[in-house]
């Protein structure tokens, strides 16, 4: 039994069910005048059939058992969690605090998470990255980076 296939198949089946329901609400129309829900509905049906095939495939596999946890064995998955947490926090703070301070904080955190170097190395590296990115994107390319309450 392949638990990975079973889990992923179930995920796609749920997506398929949701899409088909939503499409029915929109209206699939008729063949000579397809409605807004026509393509999403049939795409959802195809997705559902394929999801069932994946579940069946997972159930039929006999040789060995592929566990979900094996995917994260022997790898540094903690770093991934920290990176994602910092990115979501960054999105929350960016519009309020502004690009320079928020991004400096993010860079310091990411550089430290990637490899625990000395604090001053991390701070200097982050400062250089911010300076170059600000000059390159905001000044040279005129990208509108958020200013926040501090005005920068």
């Amino acid at each position, binding site marked *: 039994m392949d638990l*990975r296939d079973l*889990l*992923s198949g179930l995920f*796609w089946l749920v*997506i398929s069910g949701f*899409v088909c329901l*939503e499409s029915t609400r*929109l209206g699939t129309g*008729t*063949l*000579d*005048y*397809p409605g*807004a*829900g*026509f*393509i*999403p509905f049939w*795409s*959802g049906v*195809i*997705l559902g059939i*394929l*999801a069932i*095939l*994946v579940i069946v*495939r997972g159930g039929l596999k*006999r*040789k060995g058992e592929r566990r979900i946890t094996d*995917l994260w064995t022997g*790898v*540094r*998955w903690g*770093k*991934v969690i920290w*990176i*994602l947490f910092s*990115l*979501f926090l960054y*999105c929350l703070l*960016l*519009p309020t605090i502004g690009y320079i301070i928020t*991004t400096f904080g*993010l*860079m310091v955190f*990411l*550089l430290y998470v*990637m*490899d625990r*170097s000395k604090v001053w190395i991390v701070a200097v*590296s982050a400062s250089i*990255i911010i300076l170059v*990115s600000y000059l390159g*994107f905001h000044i040279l*390319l*005129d*990208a*509108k*980076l*958020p200013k926040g309450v501090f005005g920068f």
Partner: protein
Amino acid sequence: MDILHSIFYGFSVGIEPTNLLFCFLGVLVGTLIGVLPGIGPIGTISILLPLTFRISPVSAIIMLAGVYYGSMYGGSTTSILVNIPGEAASVVTCLDGYEMAKQGRAGPALGIAAFGSFIAGTLGIVGLMFVAAPLAELGLRFGPPEYFSVILFGMTLITYLSHGSVINALIMGAFGIILSCVGIDPIHGSPRMTFNTMQLWDGVDLVPIAMGLFGVSEILINVEQTENLEILKTKIKSFFPTAADWIKSKGAILRGTLLGFLLGVLPGGNPIIASFLSYGLEKRISKEPEKFGRGAIEGVAGPESANNSCTSGAFVPLFTLGIPSNAAMALMFGALLIHGIRPGPFLLKDHPDLFWGVISSMYIGNVMLLILNLPLIPMWVQVLKVPRRILYPIIILFCIIGSYCVKNNIFDVVTMIIFGILGYLFKKFEYESAPLILAFVLGPMLELNLRQSLILSNGSFLIFFKRPISAVIIIISLIFIASSLISLFLKRKKRNIQGELIK
């Protein structure tokens, strides 16, 4: 004569200082990301896409094209010196390229990869010049049924040619089409799957999806790994292959060029598949197949030529029919739309500066790449030593800025992160992202052409079989689908028989 005039006109566009600069930037960045394992050309193109908003469409496509074909050159360096492919299309080069390096022949391996890429790239551009105009003429006869059939064929071929499970690739294709439906329905104007969120009324943007799936997810996967790069300590005496090397390689280069170009033209073909097929072909026809995997120079020359000519071929369906043949072309398609240019049969007529300018810049770019990739190899080796702990946060920052700058909205950054998580999980559960992105880009065209065809035929699907071009393409698609299913069934049967024999 017409083509000659057009080429001269193209060169007059290509050698403008701005376009020369962007061509150089594109091939330089392309070589850089080709050399560095971790992020590939698709992720890089998606990151650079928002930066092209402020430059002319010609310069934008010249630069992005340079990134694409430039990465094919750069990828071979890491494959040969480190035994890790710089990007996916150079996986096969590791097999014989690294062996050659271990035998003290890194120079000829790097040389034949660069020269083979140059020859194939140049011949591929010649092919593009001569095939594009007639195909554009044919494209003028296309109506909604023909467009629907070609797009369907493209999606079918992608699943047929995917590395992993066909079912998984089909799932990603279906999901891509569903994602493309989010937003306002183009015919009825009603919101679809927007969850009462105003930011989703315009649909999900291509840039955050691409950056998330190919940029952020790649970083997350790489950050988990613990292995370090070890560069082979070898002295590179000369980059020039010997006369014997050229005799062995000339056939492989020409065959790789033709195979790569044809695969590039077909919707669904991509440089990764081209390089694998070329390697397989060379091994099959070689008089000494046992030498493959042990330093056979044909095993480097063929695949490296194929992946380069494929990049030229890939522009053919994009420019002439307006159909991107792979994920990178899907992003180019997005770039053209952002600049208000609709690729298709009228592109040659309405924007000859773009078409011929890009072609001429590809000639110029190939020359630049030959110079960048041989004498500057020692510099690229130093680049490989840049710690990944510095590189990854910079790439994440570029992804954030790129996503934000699409509409100056934090929602797109959140979208990018969500797709980064999805891309990371897709890789873990063995689902490829390329079919998703291609289906996402082709989805709106598929839907519009299908609905228009059904309206024209009063709901009859026979319209796709009554029109000859459409009928031929649909039949070929069905053959490919049937062949995939039969192959799947036979593999399963073989596995069951082997399992019973073992018992």
